[in-house]
């Protein structure tokens, strides 16, 4: 959480095995061989992003999360090629077939004989589309609102932040359900935008905070003095400083959006299960057949794996993108 320098016990200073940040084990950040300089005085010039990339690549859990997501989301993106069947293919000879390698139904079949592996893979695609779009749209909206509130301050700030407070005091899931029931009508894209309408508040608050503290800095004043317009200062000079928290926040909100979409679909107010297989929708229809464990296990396990990987990745990104982490190699 907080990155106050943790005192290292004397024994650990000799050979620091691991550094912990927020309970995560982080690989020690040491000098790479190329920078300890074989030739003598030359030191490789590294940008802030180089450091971030190196910290990220050395973060074990983050890499696990990253690879896991590439595999899971890759399957979703290339569902047309990866899935053994089409998700709507009905095989009435193989109804509620248990998972077996022999019958080519690795995850079994559902109550109309549709291959469950294919349905889960297409479900991943739906989740991925919803999650990524929600994260993207809500980040942009939150960014703009937070930037305007933080940069201009005063009345505008007050109004925008009261709006944010208002959204935060609403019972989120209930309002989402109401909105999804009344406006969503089973359409995946409507649902995505309804979700995005609730996810921007977190980003807006973070961005506003950074803008509030940075707009008083000397370099902003210098930019103003040299005649830069408001938009240029906001997006060219201050915005890059907020990218770290935004990226981390967006990553985490992919998982949050996927879980929320699954919950809505599970309760029957999400994506129309007849046209689009979604992980929550699969779990919802699995309730009709509690005896067939595979119908519940596989979609749920997929959601858990996605969430775990996204959380790992988010933690790694947070550690990597925090410039104060440089003290580790000082």
């Amino acid at each position: 959480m907080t990155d106050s320098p943790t005192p290292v016990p004397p024994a650990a200073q000799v050979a620091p095995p691991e550094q912990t940040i927020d309970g995560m084990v982080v690989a020690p950040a040491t000098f790479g061989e190329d920078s300890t300089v074989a030739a003598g005085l030359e030191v490789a010039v590294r940008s802030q992003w180089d450091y971030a990339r190196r910290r990220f690549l050395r973060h074990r859990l983050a890499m696990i999360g990253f690879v896991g997501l590439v595999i899971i989301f890759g399957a979703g993106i290339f569902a047309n090629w990866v899935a053994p069947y089409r998700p709507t293919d009905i095989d009435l000879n193989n109804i509620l077939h248990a998972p077996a390698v022999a019958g080519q139904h690795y995850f079994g079949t559902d109550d109309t004989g549709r291959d469950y592996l294919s349905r889960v893979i297409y479900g991943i695609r739906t989740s991925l589309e919803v999650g990524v779009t929600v994260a993207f749209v809500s980040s942009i909206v939150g960014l703009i609102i937070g930037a305007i509130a933080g940069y201009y301050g005063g009345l505008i700030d007050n109004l925008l932040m009261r709006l944010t407070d208002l959204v935060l005091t609403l019972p989120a899931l209930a309002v989402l359900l109401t909105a999804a029931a009344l406006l969503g009508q089973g359409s995946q894209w409507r649902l995505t935008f309804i979700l995005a309408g609730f996810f921007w508040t977190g980003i807006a608050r973070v961005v506003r905070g950074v803008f509030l503290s940075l707009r008083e800095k000397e370099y902003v004043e210098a930019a103003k003095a040299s005649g830069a317009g408001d938009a240029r200062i906001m997006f060219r000079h201050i915005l890059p400083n907020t990218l770290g928290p935004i990226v981390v926040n967006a990553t985490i909100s992919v998982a949050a959006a996927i879980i929320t979409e699954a919950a809505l679909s599970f309760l029957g107010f999400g994506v129309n299960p007849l046209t689009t297989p979604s992980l929550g929708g699969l779990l919802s229809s699995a309730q009709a057949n509690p005896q067939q464990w595979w119908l519940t296990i596989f979609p749920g396990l997929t959601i858990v794996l996605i969430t775990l990987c996204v959380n790992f990745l988010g933690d790694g990104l947070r550690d990597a993108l925090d410039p104060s982490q440089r003290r580790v190699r000082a």
Partner: protein
Amino acid sequence: MLTYIARRILYSIPVLFLSSFLSFVFVSYAGNPLGNLRSNPRIPANTLRLVAERNHLNDPVVLRYFYWLKDFVTDKMGKSLLTFQPIWPDVHRTILHTAQVVLIAECLAIILGVAVGIFSAIRQYSVFDYTFTSLSFLGYAMPTFWLGLLLQILFVDIYLKWHVRIFYTSGLNNIGQGTWSLDRLQHIALPVVTLCVVSFALYSRYMRASMLDVINSDYVRTARAKGVAEWRVVTRHVVRNALIPVVTVAALNLGGLLGGAIVTETIFTLDGFGYYFIQSLQNSDFYAVMAYLVVTSVIIILFNLIADVVYGYLDPRIRYD
């Protein structure tokens, strides 16, 4: 402090007013409140017209909001547009059921989460720590509805295989059993466990992180340096201060859950506030939906306030003025 509380309460009145107005506009533009009645061929058009007239459904939406608000405030949340029954008795009944389940689950989760958080932090990197840190990561990633479904499947299977009824997987009571009976416990055990696991993951993570923050602070080092016994350092200096953020999180979480654990209650068809909301929504019972939204907003605002006040009380460094 008192002026702070008073100001917060006064400030929340316009917020509630605005949020209920927005919800009302939104709900009333999105669907016809008499849609269900209209699709019933046995109700003559004349009756419908009368019903619409009596409930001011032909007036502009702003006026309708004030009619609704008047009923809501003076007539105990008004009457349903679907059944024409008063809403309050339903709200009263279901919210008590929710409170029973949620309070039991949260008490368990806080006790277990705090205990595990303390030991994880004291024995950092031990097997215990790694086990529970991983478990809480898993619990954190686990969607409530999946956990609930798994428990349900498990106990349905146990019943079908061995014909023993340990826990019921749906409902609230068998006929003729009361609020505090063994039968009720058997019914609410699974929802309680579901809610408890999710909250436990949250609390143990928070407690561990906050313990580690405090353990490394200057005043703890000072206490150790002046020779205070280790257990006394932990119980007096560390745990007490580490609890502060956890109390805040618990208050916020409790507020969210008391407004109805929608998903959990729906899975176990528990007659709670969240399940009442889902049913009202499915039936397009808009005034019941409005009642739910307003009540939960009040609860959330109230618990936000409680969290802030408790935080200020426990941590004298925080001052509200």
